[in-house]
Structures are given as structure tokens and as C-alpha cells.
């Protein structure tokens, strides 16, 4: 079966990306234009097929494979009818050039080649660690992966009873992308590496932005690679978090809007970007708000003829932009209907007046951060404290989710000065496009909630990247060589101080590698991560067993078996008698509780369950 899943995964992906790329090639798109269309069309098809199947509770391996093979084959048939057979031959002949051309460039530019090699080595290392370990990140095991496992259990993406508001409230764009490999492989082995292709997408987008703003290509491609050498980017590549995905799409949207001539198809792609931004995180709306003035400017200035009035110029493109946004808007409409707030579990206030009920994001964050923080008070003081990296986080300088680590030395030493000098030059030379793009970045940064938090505001790196690319064009040859050498040295500092990805020191990686080679049970990785309670459940739980979690959970996802053949449920109840009845009716075999939950107290007095594991956080019970 494993071989069948693997073969289907490869075949479906080759068909999906191949046909999308063939279409991009046939429509004579080149470079970034071809890449963005191939990437977004493929992502669009993945999400659309999952959404349609999920709506009818058919989201599982066979329907997903069949539907995507049908869509890709139909697209291929249409392409063959529209274009000559020579086009396919030309396309196949052009494929080796995708590898040969960068190699030729690398041969001419050794510093770029060295940085590219460091990038590829970093990605290879993250892939290696990612393949060895299951998803072990906090939010992933709390709600990102739990949603994916729910889909595996029920075959749809509807809301089910849970004690974790995030699980039902969070928009699911990132999860839909992670879901792709999980459904096709029936395994989570690739689920926490979905941000890697988006990081590559972000790098290419930044290259395109820099070139559109006037940077020379050789400087743009060097500066764009520096995006990967931000500690939080490297650390997030082996997680189910969605921050890299989000900012990469923002860069992609910006690159699209800076394209010289926008076609109707480009508007569709912009719609897909907006949809993804909305569906990945509710703060994606801030990025759309940031891109909107540029979109309006482009629409008003790129009419095909003067006979079109401004209304047509503005309204017609939205006929292409809005339909793909349905997926992104769905999650907010669903939340509004079901929970009374589109951004549930958060509420929304304007000037102190509640528009939607619930704590606002700022109030939630302030409560969470102010409880025990060494951060100074004051917005600028906090940003400075974090950017100068004055404090570690649970023994790690860098992590995928830390209050204290900033954006690393490449940002602080090279990109901040580049931004300052570029801004000065842009104002002096009255380059209003450059000033405007800078204003977009800083406006979004200013209004972004808790903007000292590096994983939320790592988009600001984009401003540094295009600024550095522009500045390098103004330096002497020696100056450029020095900047590139310094960038390489700082990239090495970042790389070596992040290779352990905080949670994967080399000793642990080695032990996991040896365990994997000897064919250890996958859940032994939980032991290596200090999650013995989940290992207990995972080892004892059999196919079709029902495992329940309580009203105060930390992690839910590890309760599923690695092959997703057991069921995991939450039993909502305020009284012990009602709860006991439901537990009996649902044939619960195992119960994982945190020590402070009400279910824990009830289970201690229940004669139907016996304790089989207890540690400082959890107690696991098994039905007698």
C-alpha cells in the first residue's frame, strides 16, 4: 500500500505541475511570470479539488487522485486542441534549460553560487530532519495538524465539537496545502515541510520585485536569496506554521502588481494570491490592504484604451479578481454565521466599541505576553530589544516561535542600512514608486499587531532585500564584492546558529536516525521530544479505537495513530453524569487529560477507567 500511495503522489503531482507549467509555457510566459502562473495554478487546483470533495464528505485518497487526474487530463486535452503538437516538443526541449541556465550564471558569479549552495544545503538539511521527525511544533500539534487529522477522520472540513477554539476558528488555507500530501500518502511525513516551496516562491518573488524597482539582475538574485537566511524562516521550514507562506504570498502579490502589463489572467492570479492571504491567517487582510493602493494605481494607469472610463477600468478587473477569493472569504462567512464573529475566536473593536464579540487580537496578545515577559515597555523599545536579540528563549537563541529573537544579523547589519540609504535616495531622486512601495511595507508594519514579534513581521525583510539589490547597483566593484562577502559571512553565522532548529540538536537527530534505521515505532520520536504521554496512547491505541481529549488540551494531533485509523473526539459536557453517559455511548477506549481539567477529576473518581500513565502535565486513562 505504501508504494501505491507514493506512486500516486508522484504521478498526480507530476501531472498537476507539468500541465500547469505547459500552459504557462504555451501562453509565452517567461521567468517569474511563468513560475508564478505554474505555482499558483497548481496551488489553486489542489485547494479547489480538496474543497469540492470536502464539501460532499468525499475527501479521501481515491476521490482526490481521480478528480485531479481528470482535471489535469482534461486541461492537457484542451491544450493539445488549442496548440500544435510542436509546442509540447518545444516545451520538453526547454526543460533542461531550467537547470543549465542557472548553472551557467553560477559559473560566472561565484559569490552567488556560494550563497545558492548554502541555500540548497540548508533546505536539504531541513528536509532530512523533516523526514526523520514527525511534526513536533506547538501550534501544529495543537490545531494545524489536528484539523488535517479531522479531515482524515471525517472526510470533510466541517467544524466538530472541540474545546480548542483555534481549531474551528482559524482559517484553513495553510492546512489545505498541508493536507495534500497527508491524504495522498496517508502519512504526515511531508506535512510540516509545506513552507519550503513557499520560501522558494518568496525568493523568486523578491527577485522580481527588486528587478521591477530598477535593481540589476545579478544584484537582485543575490539579495533575494538572503530571505532564507533569516533565523525564523529556517526554523519554520520544518513546522506546520504558516508565517513564511503568508509573507511569500505578499511578496508574490507585490511582484505581480509590479509586472509591466497586467493581463486578465494576471488578475485571476492576483485573486488567488488574495484568497490565499485571507485563508492562511486573518492578518492576511492587512497585506491585502497594503497591496490595494498599488492595485488601484495599476488599474487606473493600465487601461487598454482611453475610451474606457475609470469605472470600467476599475470594475472589469475585479470580475477576475473576486471569484478566486471565494475560498478565502468562506472561512470568515462561516465564522460569522456560526460564532458571530468573522475572525473568531477573536472579536473586533473600533474606537473602543465592540463590532464583533470577543477579546480582540491585541487584548489576547497583551494578556499572553505581559504575564511573564522581560520585554521592555514601549513599542520602539520592544522592537529594538528584539532586533538586537538580547534574550534567549527556553535555551534557544532562535526558534520558530519566540518572543525575543529578532530577524538575525543579515537583517540588522546589511538590510536595515540598505533600507535607510535607499529611502534617502528615493526621496532625493523623487522616485515615488520606490517611496510608495517602502510606504506599503512600513504602513503594514506599523499597524500589524504585536509588531516586535519577528515571525509576524518577517515581511519587512522584503523591503531590505530590494533595497540592498538597488544599493549594490550604486556601489563600486570593490564595494559590491565586500557587501557580498559580508553577506556570505553573516549567512554562515545564521546557518550555523540555526542548524539544530532549536529542537533538533545533533545528538537527538543521530538517535532518531539510528531508531529509524532499526525500524522503531514512529511514536518513539515523541519520547525524544519529551512527550511520553502521547507515545503511550499511540502504542496502545488500536484500529477503530476512540481516544478522547479534555477541556484544557495542549496538543491533540499526536492522539491519532500514524496511519489515522483510530478516532479522536472531544466530549462537550458540563456535568459529570451527562459526560459519563456520552463517554459510554461513544465507546471511548483512552482518555488523555491535562492535570488541571474537570475531566481529569471525573476520571479519577470513575470506576470505568484506570490510569496507565502520569507525568508533570498529563494523565492517560484506559477503559477497563
Amino acid at each position, binding site marked *: 500500500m505504501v508504494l501505491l500511495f507514493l506512486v500516486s503522489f508522484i504521478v498526480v503531482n507530476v501531472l498537476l505541475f507539468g500541465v500547469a507549467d505547459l500552459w504557462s509555457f504555451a501562453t509565452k510566459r517567461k521567468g517569474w511570470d511563468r513560475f508564478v502562473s505554474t505555482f499558483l495554478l497548481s496551488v489553486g487546483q489542489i485547494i479547489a479539488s480538496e474543497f469540492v470533495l470536502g464539501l460532499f464528505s468525499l475527501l479521501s485518497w481515491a476521490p482526490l487522485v481521480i478528480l485531479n487526474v481528470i482535471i489535469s487530463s482534461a486541461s492537457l486535452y484542451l491544450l493539445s486542441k488549442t496548440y500544435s503538437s510542436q509546442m509540447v516538443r518545444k516545451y520538453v526541449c526547454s526543460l533542461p534549460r531550467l537547470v543549465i541556465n542557472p548553472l551557467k550564471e553560477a559559473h560566472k558569479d561565484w559569490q552567488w553560487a556560494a550563497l545558492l549552495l548554502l541555500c540548497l544545503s540548508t533546505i536539504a538539511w531541513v528536509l532530512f530532519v523533516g523526514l526523520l521527525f514527525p511534526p513536533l511544533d506547538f501550534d501544529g500539534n495543537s490545531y494545524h495538524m489536528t484539523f488535517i487529522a479531522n479531515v482524515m477522520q471525517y472526510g470533510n472540513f466541517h467544524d466538530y465539537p472541540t474545546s480548542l477554539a483555534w481549531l474551528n476558528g482559524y482559517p484553513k488555507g495553510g492546512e489545505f496545502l498541508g493536507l495534500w500530501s497527508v491524504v495522498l500518502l496517508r502519512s504526515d511525513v511531508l506535512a510540516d515541510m509545506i513552507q519550503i516551496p513557499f520560501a522558494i516562491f518568496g525568493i523568486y518573488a523578491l527577485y522580481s520585485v527588486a528587478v521591477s524597482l530598477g535593481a540589476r539582475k545579478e544584484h537582485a538574485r543575490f539579495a533575494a536569496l538572503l530571505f532564507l537566511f533569516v533565523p525564523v524562516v529556517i526554523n519554520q521550514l520544518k513546522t506546520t506554521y504558516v508565517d513564511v507562506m503568508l509573507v511569500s504570498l505578499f511578496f508574490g502579490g507585490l511582484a505581480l502588481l509590479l509586472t509591466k502589463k497586467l493581463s486578465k489572467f494576471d488578475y485571476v492570479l492576483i485573486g488567488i494570491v488574495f484568497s490565499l492571504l485571507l485563508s492562511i491567517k486573518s492578518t492576511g487582510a492587512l497585506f491585502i490592504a497594503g497591496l490595494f493602493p498599488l492595485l488601484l494605481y495599476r488599474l487606473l494607469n493600465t487601461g487598454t484604451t482611453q475610451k474606457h472610463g475609470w469605472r470600467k477600468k476599475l470594475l472589469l478587473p475585479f470580475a477576475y479578481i473576486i471569484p478566486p477569493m471565494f475560498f478565502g472569504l468562506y472561512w470568515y462567512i462561516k465564522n460569522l454565521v456560526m460564532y458571530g464573529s468573522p475572525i473568531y475566536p477573536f472579536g473586533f473593536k473600533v474606537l473602543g466599541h465592540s463590532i464583533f464579540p470577543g477579546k480582540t487580537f491585541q487584548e489576547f496578545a497583551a494578556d499572553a505576553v505581559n504575564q511573564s515577559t522581560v520585554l521592555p515597555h514601549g513599542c520602539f523599545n520592544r522592537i529594538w530589544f528584539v532586533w*538586537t536579540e538580547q534574550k534567549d528563549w527556553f535555551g534557544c*537563541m532562535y526558534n520558530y516561535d519566540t518572543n525575543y529573537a529578532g530577524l538575525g544579523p543579515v537583517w540588522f*547589519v*546589511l538590510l536595515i542600512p540598505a533600507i535607510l540609504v535607499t529611502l534617502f535616495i528615493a526621496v532625493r531622486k523623487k522616485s515615488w514608486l520606490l517611496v510608495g512601495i517602502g510606504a506599503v511595507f512600513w504602513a503594514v508594519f506599523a499597524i500589524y499587531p504585536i509588531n516586535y514579534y519577528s515571525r509576524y513581521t518577517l515581511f519587512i525583510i522584503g523591503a531590505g532585500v530590494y533595497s540592498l539589490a538597488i*544599493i549594490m547597483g550604486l556601489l563600486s566593484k570593490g*564595494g559590491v564584492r565586500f557587501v557580498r562577502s*559580508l553577506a556570505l559571512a553573516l549567512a554562515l553565522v545564521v546557518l*550555523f546558529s540555526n542548524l539544530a532548529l532549536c529542537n533538533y540538536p*545533533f545528538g537527538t537527530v543521530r538517535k532518531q536516525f539510528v531508531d529509524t534505521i532499526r525500524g522503531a515505532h514512529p511514536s518513539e520520536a515523541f519520547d525524544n521530544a519529551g512527550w511520553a504521554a502521547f507515545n503511550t496512547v499511540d502504542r496502545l491505541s488500536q484500529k477503530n479505537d476512540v481516544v478522547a481529549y479534555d477541556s484544557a488540551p495542549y496538543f491533540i494531533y499526536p492522539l491519532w495513530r500514524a496511519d489515522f485509523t483510530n478516532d479522536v473526539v472531544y466530549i462537550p459536557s458540563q456535568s459529570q453524569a451527562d459526560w459519563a453517559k456520552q463517554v459510554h455511548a461513544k465507546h471511548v477506549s483512552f482518555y488523555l487529560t491535562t492535570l488541571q481539567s474537570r475531566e481529569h477529576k471525573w476520571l479519577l473518581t470513575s470506576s470505568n477507567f484506570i490510569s496507565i500513565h502520569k507525568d508533570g502535565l498529563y494523565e492517560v486513562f484506559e477503559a477497563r
Partner: protein
Amino acid sequence: MKSLKRDSKKLTELSFFVLVFTFLWLYFVVYMTPSRITWYREMKNQLMILFRGITGLGG
């Protein structure tokens, strides 16, 4: 005119490098806190483990 442009370019280069060196000094000298030093030591330690692991595998 040409020499003015050249001077302006040199001034840009000079300003940029003054800022770069200032930020380099701030990052690696002024704010080199004990926790940062501890972390860099740990990084060195991890690299030694990796190195020993690789050479061990080779042997």
C-alpha cells in the same frame, strides 16, 4: 556634471558603509549579551557533535 555624479555615488557608498559598520558594531559588540554568548558556545558545541558524528561515520 560627471564628476558631481561620481561624487554623489561615492557619498552614497560612504554613507552605506558607515551605517553597515555601525550596525555591525551594535550587533556584535554593544549587544553581545551573556545569553547570546552562551548560545554561540552551544552552537560551537553542536558543530563539534556533528563533526564527531561525521568523522565517526567515516571511520
